[in-house]
């Protein structure tokens, strides 16, 4: 059932995730340097309810879903 292009995307995804994983630790930011990283816009500029609604809206109007680590669907409008 899985066509060749699906396999290619899977391989690409694995390569990207591995590349980022291997690259981990290249930049070391110490705790006292993280003032800016703790700002709201850098951590979560959108709250869970907004993210959930946006995902629901896109799922009801578009054929693509995912990329959030959360399950989509869950309603008849999908």
């Amino acid at each position, binding site marked *: 059932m899985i066509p060749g292009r699906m396999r290619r995307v899977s391989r690409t995804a694995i390569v990207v995730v591995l590349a980022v994983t291997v690259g981990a630790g290249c930049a070391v930011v110490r705790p006292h340097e993280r003032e800016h990283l703790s700002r709201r816009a850098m951590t979560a500029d959108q709250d869970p309810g907004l993210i959930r609604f946006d995902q629901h*809206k896109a799922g009801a*109007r578009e054929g693509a879903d995912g990329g*959030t680590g*959360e*399950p989509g669907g869950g309603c008849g409008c999908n």
Partner: protein
Amino acid sequence: MRGAWLAPAALVAALASAPPAIADGDLTLRTVYYKERATRVEQPMVDGRFDVGDHGSVDGHLLVDAITSASVAAGADGAGFSERRVEGGLGYAHTFGRLTAGITGRYSSEPDYTSSFVTARLQAELAQKNFTLAVVGGVGTDEVTNAGAPPLVPRIRGALDAYLVSASVTQLLGATTLASVTYDLSYLDGFQQNPYRMVVAGGTVVGERHPTTRLRQAIAARVRRYLPATSTTVIAGYRLYRDDWGVVAHTPELRVVQEAGDTMDVALGYRLHHQRGADFWSESYASADPMTQPYLTADGKLATMTTQALAVTFGVTGATFGWDDRWAAVRGELRVEYYLQDNRYFGNAGIAHAALTIPFEY
């Protein structure tokens, strides 16, 4: 709908008079109004999160979806209808040093559709918290009927199983920049057509026929960068999606959050979505014979399309008004969004949000 606010309001009042703190949490009340050509949705919701002990946290949400529609694309049988969907979710996460393990359940119910999903998440903070790795696994099951169809229409009942595997990594790239990549793989097995929607094929009108399995993949990357000189945060994202129905989608997104002092911010967001339609999607079908045309659909979501969304968000905290103590961190938010879609199925949409987030200690 007003009744839905009574319980959260009572909870807010209770939190306001809470005794001295030993842990904390936050509660967000949000209501959304969504309007497109033939469909209107009102969705009040409440999200909560609070600490449990030294290493645990609980989060949950409850929402009501009140939909009024005359659109068959929204699930109706061609006539106007009003429907309510209720969804609740509850999760618990526990931290073991660098590891955080969590489990979340979600249940949604409407007259012709129920859905439940359970996910487990494991997250590790590595390299002095410069690098975070998370994996998620989930399983769900949906049940669908055409309970809203006229009495003489034959009853349809279907079940859909869903599985999700996800991996994400987040890497600090400097004191003002971080990047993340998420890969989702999901598999659907079961009834995936709309039980109301009909297709004109070969001169006859028949129900939709979709494949019973669907393998979906999405990879999304996001970079956040804070510009100290102007107190601006730039968030750029891109998602590539493919599935074995032939849908391929590219979704870039850009948000700019501008702080105005320490207590206010304005965000401007733009999202572009372009997708190639499913292999079996067509404006018309020459035959309804399953031997020559195994799949039939009238689902506008499976068509080739381009959508654009533009959103403006204004946030303000209680400190702006001179409130102190726990009320200084209360955050109010207004968001207005306009959503443009270039196909004939849904039309453009306007969306308005109002939200209030109340941190609390107990």
